[in-house]
């Protein structure tokens, strides 16, 4: 067992290499540093896609490896976005207010500055007072800590409550969905302190970076996203490769058996749930400055379900599958809903993809679930010639509902 981590997981090296080449290619083709073949908005789209790939890895860890179908990870993703968005919005408004007030002959009092910022930010929900949750908004360091702490603590508390009462399977899925719904409904209120359904906006403008073109900023965020994805992939691969990974796969396949072997199943689940929530939050904190706006609709349960769709289409239980699924489906989605795919005239009716993409996605998702449970990642097995262990079609576990062997080869 002296073989190195990379030798045991060749896919990690391949993935990192592909990611590096991709990053380099985008850098060379971008407007800021290269030929300009890729527009700034497309670089942003690619950067956002990398963030989605990162959250898909988190989803794969919790679902594909630990067998917990969480419908709440996009909520953690959104929370991360909100946390960084608070600082971005506060700092930028502060700069604007300070500039406009600098022209006054009499210097403003501190209270006047805060009031002016408050009016700027909360005027849209008919208020001008800073809610208590904005108390750290003036500090980037504290707000960055909150990016990790708030979703992490929420996941910890929720996970602890759910796992200790042995809520499993679909019950847990529904419970996480309820949590997501509760959170998004809460944020939809105007007096939630986060601007209700207006959300936080103008996040693409970094404070103090007025003179730097968006082309540069988009590339920086692209690099940051690529770096985060690389690190996230390494971390996830490391988590699932060792003994720990074996235990969580064991929990997925037969929770009771792992418990009887003496493992603290709840502890493992809680760890995976919390760490994936944090990864999702970091992905969100990188995503929303590129998207420019965040509102509670992004946290609605449907977003988390789409996340599950990406991972399922890409292939659960393999990290690169999740990345491929997220990148493939989200880019395809952007193309179809953005009207970039030509309509199909059928003579009696013209299929406009903006209207029909969701139908296509829903149906193809059903087809993937029914006929290709391995997803796109399963194609890799054809190339490598990997064969599942032959157990003559028997279930891998004694429970009904345990995985069949063709789904559990990772």
């Amino acid at each position, binding site marked *: 067992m002296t073989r190195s981590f990379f030798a045991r997981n060749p896919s990690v090296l391949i993935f990192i290499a592909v990611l590096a080449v991709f990053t380099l290619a985008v850098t060379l083709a971008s407007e800021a540093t290269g030929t300009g073949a890729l527009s700034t908005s497309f670089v942003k789209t690619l950067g956002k896609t990398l963030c989605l790939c990162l959250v898909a890895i988190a989803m794969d860890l919790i679902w594909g490896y630990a067998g917990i179908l969480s419908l709440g990870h996009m909520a953690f993703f959104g929370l991360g976005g909100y946390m960084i968005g608070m600082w971005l919005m506060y700092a930028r408004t502060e700069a604007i207010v300070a500039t406009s007030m600098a022209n006054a002959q009499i210097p403003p*009092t501190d209270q006047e500055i805060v009031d002016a910022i408050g009016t700027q930010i909360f005027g849209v929900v008919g208020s001008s007072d800073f809610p208590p949750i904005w108390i750290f908004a003036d500090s980037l360091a504290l707000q960055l800590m909150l990016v990790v702490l708030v979703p992490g603590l929420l996941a910890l508390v929720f996970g602890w409550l759910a796992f*200790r009462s042995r809520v499993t399977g*679909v019950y847990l899925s*529904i419970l996480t969905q309820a949590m997501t*719904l*509760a959170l998004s409904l809460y944020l939809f209120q105007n007096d939630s302190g986060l601007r209700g359904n207006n959300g936080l906006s103008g996040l693409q403008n970094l404070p103090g970076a007025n003179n730097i073109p968006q082309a540069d900023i988009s590339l920086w965020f692209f690099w940051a996203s690529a770096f985060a994805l690389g690190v996230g992939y390494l971390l996830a691969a490391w988590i699932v490769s060792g003994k720990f990974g074996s235990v969580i796969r064991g929990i997925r396949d037969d929770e009771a058996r792992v418990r009887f072997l003496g493992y603290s199943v709840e502890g493992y689940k809680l760890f995976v749930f919390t760490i994936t929530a944090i990864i999702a939050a970091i992905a969100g904190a990188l995503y929303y400055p590129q998207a420019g706006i965040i509102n509670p609709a992004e946290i609605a349960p449907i977003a988390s379900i789409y996340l599950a*769709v990406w991972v399922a289409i890409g292939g659960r239980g393999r990290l690169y599958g999740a990345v491929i699924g997220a990148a493939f489906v989200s880019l395809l989605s952007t193309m179809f809903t953005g009207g970039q795919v030509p309509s199909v005239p059928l003579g009696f009716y013209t299929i406009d993809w903006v209207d029909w993409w969701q*139908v296509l996605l*829903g149906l193809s998702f059903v087809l993937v*679930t029914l006929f290709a449970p391995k997803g796109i990642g399963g194609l890799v097995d054809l190339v490598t010639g990997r064969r599942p262990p032959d157990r003559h079609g028997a279930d891998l576990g004694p429970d009904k509902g345990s995985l069949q062997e063709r789904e559990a080869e990772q």
Partner: protein
Amino acid sequence: MKRIISAVLVAWTLCVSLASAQDLAGSPIQTLLQEHRALIEKASRKTIQPAIDALGESGLPQAQVVLEKWQDKELWQRESDGLFFFAEKVDSTTWRLIDIDTGAPVGEVDKGEIDQLKPNSGVRSLIGATLVQFQLLDPDPAKRIEALDAIQRDPEESHLAALAGSIEKEPDPEIRTRKERLVRLLTISWSESEEDRIAAIESFKGDLGVDTRAALNPLVATIREVAEGEIPQGVNLAARLRPGSEALPAAEAYALLVGNGLAPERIDADARLAALQQNIVEGRVGGVPLAQLDTEEARDRAYAALAEAGVVPPTALQADVDAALAAHVFYDRYAEPNAVITEAANETLSSINTQVGLNQALDLGLDALSLASIYFLAAIGLAVTFGVMGVINMAHGEFIMMGAYTGYVVQQLIPDYTISILVALPMAFAVTFAAGVALERLVIRWLYNRPLETLLATFGISIALQQLAKNIFGTQARPLTSPGWLDGALVLNDVVSISYIRIAIFVLALIFLFLFLFIMNRTRIGLEVRAVTQNPRMAASMGINPDRINMLTFGLGSGIAGIAGVAIGLYAKVTSELGADYIVQSFMTVVVGGVGNIWGTLLGATMIGFLQKGIEWLNPSNTLAAQTYMIIFIIIFIQFRPRGIIALKGRAAGD
């Protein structure tokens, strides 16, 4: 000869007209009017009362008509002899006079020969008060009720005596009760006697009428006042207020002082800043350098220096404000000076409030019950597919939507709302039953034993169906109109009411509960469903076809969702997101209630309905927050009863 004849004719005409004038003047009503002629001609509010009283008390049958016409400015006086007539216009210059006694036309006159009586508004209202007396004793009950309504709408002091006088002669017991109640109400506001008022106030204890509260609330209205040193004697004190408390913020208290001329005005921050800006001299204001002016104290100091120099008007500083606030007392006093009456009114109001609170709780309970029946209807189909078969159907919400759209389409084809609803219910069942069977055959049966996959696959169906509905029906909401006999509400009293549509949904939920119980417990198919649920292999070896049973069960659950969709569509707008709005609550209902038990679903729906209404009542402005707190509550509830309120035990519990 001609002359003689004409002279005779003239004399005769004169005689006749004189005679008729004598005749007219002789009628009792005209006599009465002539007696008070001087008052009537120069009618003024102060002097007219005896004339009106005389008419009112005369007991003459024409008195009411005369008063009404007089009030409406339709009483005329002939200049030549001062007699009163009604008149109607013949053409622009000629008017026809009508006798006030008999109503017969008397003759036509030139407009210049008659004067219109134009009582002013004060006189008219006095006439009105006397007229009320007539209306209250009118033989037609409808007229009497009309008069009571008018009094209730716009009560006046003068009504009290008239109303009290009319009770004796009231034959109809119902109207009599109403009159007595109205007398008590008027007594509260207008009676001279303190005992009467207090007795009237106390008689309304626990009364729910809005009119009672409208009569009582002015009695306890307060006026905010301020005094130096101590509160003056003899004031009917409601409460003493401390400046700076929540009831009286310091700024408001000082504004009160300024308003009463007890303290100088304090300049507000913006005006002070403007004043400072106008007086910048060589980078300083009042001797304070500009750079230092970023605190409140520095600005106050600079302004004070300017005021001393006489450049700006002086203002109170923060210290002066504090001193002024400390030197005065602030209090609310009742507008009503009599403390006994305010006390009685307060007591009665608090007893009314208790009663209103109880009734509001009842109203809330009814609301919650109807919400619970909606959740029950939405969840009962899910209880079948999820509870009995263990299959998660995320497309359940879309089946609800499909049912609602079926109702909409049926209404487009059948214009009569009653018939269309009766057709729509079975149609919706048929459509969603077919869709459910198709879904089961095509997708779900391949995924039994893999619940997470079922969840995802049905979710795919759900987004496809939602988008499909959007493509077909558009994004705007479609109306599903309820039949006319379901409009309106059942009103129990002024506080408690429930709309018929909610009652209908409640009844529908009950019907489905019993239908479901009947099917499951009393029919062959129910027996087979229960057998397949407990042990499919054993059931199969007993000759039951589990495939067929699963298909039918799923169809049944979906069909009920369709009917729930029609019911929900009746009071909510039909959109493609209709189902998605209910899906999480429906799952919650099933999970909280306990899977696999219809009574559990019933309890779960009841609990969630009451919980949501209860939270909404605590925080009425915000239904979003109510849903948030409810979901959090459910998450915590699951901690204590992970398998729901009614958990299956033993073998039936499965895993």
